[in-house]
């Protein structure tokens, strides 16, 4: 019964792998934006933020980026292919 409810979809695994690849492509963009956030802390804010806050924030974003990158590496690369081996599904959607 559960099988019947699932939508018909071929190559579910490789499809998901490609979506995770998309996610890993977004990662640097998201990271770049996040690293810019402290720049908005200028001004005579009441809750004044100092260098130590910026440091905590930057390193926090940094470690999150590392973790996400590490998490995304494995599932995006199921089969181990070197630059000589041909993985050709590159831009398949």
């Amino acid at each position, binding site marked *: 019964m559960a099988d019947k409810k699932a939508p018909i979809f071929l190559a579910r695994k490789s499809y998901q792998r490609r979506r995770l690849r998309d996610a*890993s492509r977004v990662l640097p963009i998201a990271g770049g934006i996040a*690293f810019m956030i402290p*720049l908005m802390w200028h001004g005579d804010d009441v809750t004044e933020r*100092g260098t130590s806050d910026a440091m905590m924030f930057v390193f926090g974003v*940094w470690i999150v*980026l590392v973790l996400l990158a590490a998490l995304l590496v494995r599932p*995006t690369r199921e089969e181990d292919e070197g*630059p000589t081996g041909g993985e*050709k599904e590159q*831009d398949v959607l």
Partner: protein
Amino acid sequence: MSFNLLIFVALLYAALLFVVAFIADQRAKLGRARWLGSPAIYTLSLSIYCTAWTFYGAVGNAARNGLEFVTIYLGPTLVMVGWWWFLRKLVWVGRAQRVTSIADLISSRFGKSTPLGVLVTVIAIIAATPYIALQLQSVVQSLAVFADSSGEAWGNSDLNRAALWVSIGLALFTILFGTRNLDANEKHHGIVTAIALEAIVKLCALVAVGVFVVWGMTGGVRDTLALIDASPISEWEQSGGRWAGLIFVSAAAFVCLPRMFQVMVVENEQESHLATASWAFPLYLLAMSLFVLPIAVVGLEVMPEGSNPDLFVLTLPLSASQEGLAVFSFLGGFSSATSMVIVATIALATMVSNHIVVPIWLSSQREGALMSGDVRSVVIGARRFSIVAVLVLGYLYFRTSGGGSALAAIGLVSFTGAIQVLPAIIGALFWRGATRVGASAGLTVGLAIWAWTLFLPSFGPNAIITESVMASGPFGIEWLRPQALFGIGGQDPLLHAVFWSMSLNALIFVIGSVFSFPTPLERLQGAQFVNVFENTGGARNWTPSAAASEDLLIMSQRLLGATEAQKVFQQAAEKQGKTGYLPDVTPEFIQQLERELAGSVGAATAHAMIGQLLPGASISVEDLMAVADEAAQIMEYSSRLEAKSREQERTARQLRQANEKLTALSVQKDAFLSQISHELRTPMTSIRAFSEILQDENADDAQRIRYAGIIHNETMRLTRLLDDLLDLSFLENGQVVLNKRRISLRKLLNQAISSAGINADGAGLKINRTPQDEDVSLTTDPDRLSQVFINLISNAAKYCGADAPELSSIVRNLGADLQIDFVDNGEGISVENQTMIFEKFSRLTDHRKAGGAGLGLAICREIMQRLDGSVSYLPGQGGAAFRVTVPLSDPE
């Protein structure tokens, strides 16, 4: 702690590096060291990004500018995390094209151009020399710190002497392990292993100092944070432009620096290493930067005013009498400096020897590629010479600049120079339209602007550029002021230089590429670079020519060494199904050999050398066609298939129709034959019968005359029949020659009526004409058209069954055509017979009465077809009606 002990420790450490490198090289040669090719080693080798500039300079930078130092590590972090965008392609291209350096990459992409390789090499040397000097400076400065602490104040000459010894040691190490072989893949296992070890040492040293500072000198994390908030750099006043700009510069430099390219692309073994490094290397950078700010803040707090913040990493442990830690820290700084210098020197030496020395040497050789002697020794010699030259340059820069300026400033100047190749690299990998002209122009402009706005001013006021030029521009041209190009001043000099050099570089690159035409080789290489994931097979660069396989072998042996070259040739021969060492000189083989050679001397030189042996070699149209997109090819192929299958369908349909027609024709022919035999037989029978009677002597004269008359009549009938058949056959085969001329319709009808034997008085058949409509003239064959009219009129005379037969001719002028209807007042023709009357031998009544063979209407139809008109039966006119349509003028 005595200074000599420090020197001893340093020498011991250096010896350890030699031993490690030696062992790694030995094991790699035996193929017994799987760990050598592990992702961990790869990640650690990337750490040459963290030079002494990081180890010492980051703390200094943090002490001056606060958190800004971190941008230098955020850029590479983003590039690594985003490896799927850029680095992956770079590594693939590097492997597929056997690229040996960044100059080789650009030269290879833009048509294996030697001048472009030289240009990139020059940029790399200019940008890297200050950086190498910086490393020497950091080592001798750190030595001076220890000398100071042990009571020997170092003067300038001591510093210079130490720098010289360090340079000599580095040259020795690099030559020993960097030029052991001319390995096709340019892999240096020994060096990579040694720098991996150094990466661990420098990380541990910095972390150790950090841990000591945070937990040993301060009360832990909370106190450290409080100290940061209380320090002079507590206020968060980061300039957004510098923050974003430096992230960009460091990200770009991470891929453009020759030494980074060396470890990241040239030494890369497989893609999975890059995948691992994509998160592991950012982690390394994070660990390296984590304690920088605390060390800086504590240094500012503890150390006396005026002490050099660049050396806090050393001076802090020393001031706390932690000599062991200080020595460890010194080793960390030493590691950072040496690993950078070694790899940078190898990378630069490869570029210098492949793009400058070897081409010059080759062109100076009379014999060309078939020169005598071992080229390998020449190339290795060139490389050793280049290593020494690069280090000498660095040393001289150190001597002349005299040290002193802040480390970080030189680092950024150098970075900005190195990233001038960024537009060319991005264009090389992602834009098929990028051309050599554009790349050269962009690089030249970028180099010039960088030199004018940043590099030359960095030597200090009045060193090269005088203050008056800085203030009012060269020759008083205001808008050329080095730090206010186009009159837009008041910016941070670094950002100013980055902005103008990069934007104009990219702009000129694009404009130059758009308005120039690439050579065929550029287009081939462009397609191979940009579509590296699609066509790993690659297009062919050479067409076969008469180059002897043997000449190629002789040349390759001198480059690759006899054993290696023979192996390559033997394998190629085996692949072609031949035995021995001399394969056929196929395009595939040439390409493989060229790649093989490119791994040693670079693409441009390899191409040039093979080009000398294959004078007739050129790029064929097929090669250029192979450049076309794979996708486009597939689409074209499938559409061609589709067209073909449509065509086949059409052909099948036509064949079926033709077959049906043939079958019908065969039936028709049978019917025709049987009818014709019947038609011929009837008169023949009577002729035979009556001639037999004539032979009978009993017949009287009257009978004889009668019988002879019958025989004559029947013969006439046969002749008519045969005439008709001949006429029809001529018409059907298109053998009739039409004599077209202009004639009036009235005249034509008059002729026809009189020829049909109709009397003008109307006895027999009365003809009703409309004389006013007949006043038309037309261009046609009058004889043939009147033959049709005669036929129709005499048919009416024969078959109209009315008591008072009448025939009306109605003429209509339709503009282009003339329509003539012949309508009689008989019974007409029944519907089922209407389709048959134009067939041959169709006769509706007794044929004796008709006196014809039934070919008249068939002939009429054929004639009208020849005249581009038609004749058809017109039903519903009260009698038999035929419509003749004929064009008024000759269509031709």
